[in-house]
Every structure is written in C-alpha cells, then in structure tokens.
C-alpha cells in the first residue's frame, strides 16, 4: 500500500529500544488475512503494475523485460520464490521453535515452507551471518533477536528473485528484515526489503495473520516439471520498448504510466498531486472485482 508520512511521531511515547527481556511464544498455525493487496496475494498482480515500488532505472528496465511465460521455462517451473514471498504470497504460516535438547533454550524459530517457498530458519543463538562470498540460495540465511516482545529477523544470502510475481526483480544483494508484532491472537508482520541493485530506498509491506486451531500445512506436494508451452532452452522476454502491457494499468484503473512504472516518489502521498488532474474514476469493474464469496478470506 501507499506509504504515508507522519510529521511528529509517537517515538517519545512508545518504547522501541530496550533490551530483550520479554520474549513471547510465536508457535502455532496462523491464517493469512488477505483483506488487502488481493491480487498480489492471490492470482497475481497485473502485468506492469509497479506503483509503490522504489525502483531505480535498472529495476524498472529489468521488470519491463519480464514475460510471465518465464515461469513456465522447464528450468524455472520448480524454482522457489525468495523469502520475500512471505510478504507477497497468499499463504498462511506455521511457526515452531527448535530447542536445545539439553537446556531447552530456543536455538531457532522456523517458518514452515510452502510449495513455492523454502522454510525460513531464524537462528537465535547468536551465530554470525556467513561471509559475503558464501553461496546464495532462495532460502537465504536469517538471524533473529528480541526487543521485548517483538522479534526482528534479518535475512541475507538470497538469490535473485521477484518482489512481485509480475517480474519486479530483487537481486542477490537484497536483504529482508521482518518484524513480528503479536497482539493476542493476531500477528502483524512488517517486512522491509533493501536492495542496492534495484531499489533507491527500502520497500515495505505489512500484513496480518490470525491464530487458528486448524493446522497449517508446512509444504505443498512435490513440484514436478512438465511441459507448459515453453521449450527447453528458450527464454521468454521482451526487448526494450517492446513490452505490450506498459499501459495495462492505465487501461484498467486509469493509473497513468508515470505511476504504474514505480519509483520511490510513488510510495508517498505527495505523488497524488502529480496525477490528480489526469485521473477520472474508471468505469464499473468487470474483472477481479471481489468481494470474496462466503467462506473465503
């Protein structure tokens, strides 16, 4: 969602920098409440919808070269998303702790994996991150620390991936910080991606979950590579200035290209002044309109 600004904060009122002394239990099954960012967390975002992404020029150009058929390449069909998929994917969470068998001390928290994302192990035992030259993978390497009852996890060593499933790229230099805030049966995550290769400033998403007694499955069925219309060796892509969807958001939502192509200024409320005079409420919604049918979130 659009990032807003506050001119005076609650910083003097809420305590944010005290030592870790009041850890809480995060274990259990947590249902994703997908009451926002519906398409991003559901069937997938519209092509070329990068509004609110603090892209630099390289990020934008790489995204514009993306063809959705890329994920049907035999080499990519079973390719995991990075841990950023926690922010941008649809799924619920299963969380548990790994305890030292002798002392009972929690060595790690684990966020169970999905069929499209590897489990995340958050090491709590003080181990350092590997050398910057160590191998990267989609799982990455994550350490955590408590600040009172708030857990902060920091992930490095991830491979190139996507911030959005419409091809918005993240590099192997990206890092992810996740803050876990529990309020009774509700868990809110604030996720921050920093990427010196494709972003000019941090990209932030928040989302919430509800505790559920229904067990959340920790992985889907094994992925099997099949033919999805892309021959082995072919790399679907668009050449510069040839992306056919560049005005898709304008056609559907009347969001002009200068907004849909992203950039840091599109995260902030001031940007709206730039497009206000051009905007006309679009005609009645005809696809992806919601509301959810009874029984869905």
């Amino acid at each position, binding site marked *: 969602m659009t990032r807003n600004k506050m001119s005076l904060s609650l910083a003097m009122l809420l305590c944010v920098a005290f030592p870790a002394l009041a850890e809480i239990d995060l274990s259990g099954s947590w249902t994703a409440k997908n009451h926002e960012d519906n398409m991003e967390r559901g069937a997938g975002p519209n092509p070329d919808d990068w509004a609110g992404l603090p892209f630099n020029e390289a990020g934008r150009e790489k995204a514009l070269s993306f063809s959705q058929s890329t994920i049907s390449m035999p080499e990519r069909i079973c390719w995991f998303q990075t841990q950023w998929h926690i922010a941008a994917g649809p799924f619920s969470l299963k969380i548990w702790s790994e305890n030292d068998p002798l002392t009972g001390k929690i060595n790690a928290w684990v966020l169970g994996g999905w069929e499209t994302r590897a489990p995340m192990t958050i090491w709590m035992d003080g181990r350092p991150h590997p050398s910057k030259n160590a191998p990267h993978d989609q799982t990455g390497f994550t350490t955590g620390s408590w600040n009172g009852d708030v857990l902060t996890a920091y992930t490095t060593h991830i491979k190139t991936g996507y911030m959005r499933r419409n091809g918005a790229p993240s590099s192997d230099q990206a890092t992810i910080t996740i803050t876990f805030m529990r*309020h009774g049966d509700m868990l809110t995550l604030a996720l921050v991606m920093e990427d010196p290769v494709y972003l000019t400033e941090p990209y932030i998403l928040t989302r919430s979950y509800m505790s559920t007694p229904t067990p959340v499955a920790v992985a889907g069925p094994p992925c099997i590579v099949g033919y999805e219309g892309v021959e082995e060796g072919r790399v679907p892509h668009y050449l510069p200035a040839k992306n056919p969807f560049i005005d898709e958001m304008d056609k559907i939502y009347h969001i002009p290209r200068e907004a849909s192509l992203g950039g840091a200024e599109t995260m902030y409320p001031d940007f709206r002044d730039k497009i206000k005079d051009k905007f006309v409420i679009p005609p009645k919604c005809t696809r992806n309109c919601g509301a959810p049918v009874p029984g869905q979130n």
Partner: protein
Amino acid sequence: MVTPAPGDYQSVPMTMAAIKIADAWDPAKDEAAGDQCKSYGAPALLRVPEHLHITWQDDQTLRMDADAGKQTRLFHFGDWKAPGGAQGDAGPTLQGDSVAQWEIQRAGPRPVNGSLKVTTSHLKAGYLRKNGVPYSENAGLTEYYDLVKERNGDLLMVVTIVVTDPMYLREPFIISSHFKKQDGDAGWNPTACSARW
C-alpha cells in the same frame, strides 16, 4: 493511490446487504448531501494517502490530525467517558469515541516494549473504501500502533486495523498501514474531503 472503480470490492468480506449498497454508490449524491467525508471516518482514515500530525492535546488526550480531509481524531486515556446523559449526546460522529491504553511489556519494573491500543465506537456510518463499500453505525474499530525502527534508522509507525460490523461485514476486516516518520512538516497539505478523489 486512486479511487477504485465502482464495483471493485477486492478483499473486503462484505455481506450481501453491503454489496447492494455499494453497487448504488453515487458520489454526486454524496456531494449533494454534503457527505463528501464518508470515506474519511476512523475505520478508513489511515488508508487514505496522507500525512499525520500527532501531539498531546492534554495529559490524557492524544490528538491525531490528518491533512487528508482535515480530520482530527482524539485518543482518550484514563477513565474517560463519552459525553452523554445529562450532558447531552451529540450522536455518532465520523471519528467516533476513541479510548486508548498502553500495552506495555515489562521485565520487573522496567518497560521493555509497548504498543498503543485504541478502541473506537459511536461511529457515524461511512465508507471503508472511497467507492462506497459501507460500514454501519454498529461498526467497531480496534487498532494497535507499533513503532518499528528500520536498519537505515528510519522510524515506521505500523497500525494494525480491525473493523467489525455485524451488518456489513461477514468477519472482522483486518488490514495494516504504515507511516514513515519525518522530521519536519514538509508536504503537510490540509485538503477538504472529496467524494471522488
């Protein structure tokens, strides 16, 4: 960022009664009735692109001003009671009556972390989304305010928002918004409510 199309209700767990009302959304009618602010009520205010200004009005009242729609919310601490009875009840309002309490984590006598919980009732009916998704006067609002410090030193205020409404929501509507602290008041631009933008 912009006003959604009529009929775009993605993600909102609306009842059929709510869909019927939203399908009849007509911003011209709201303007004619002087109801341009229906999408700036407390349950929706922190979803509007905007700047916030938060100050103590007095020892027991935290004040939140939003430049979008020139709205003001008051968070009352202590044993504050909504005016009523002999004092007279002004009726439900756009921003409702908000009671606030700190949720402080302590280790012994020392506070180690905390959130602000705000519960709001006595709301005038309004829109959860600018395109007419309704909430009723029976809606309730619970919010949790947390501060998150980014690695680059920026400070975020993360607000978890829970709206309940037995008339127009099939289940609690749960969303979250985040705001970045800025040092000055750059960009502060009070603007009147709009039924269309």
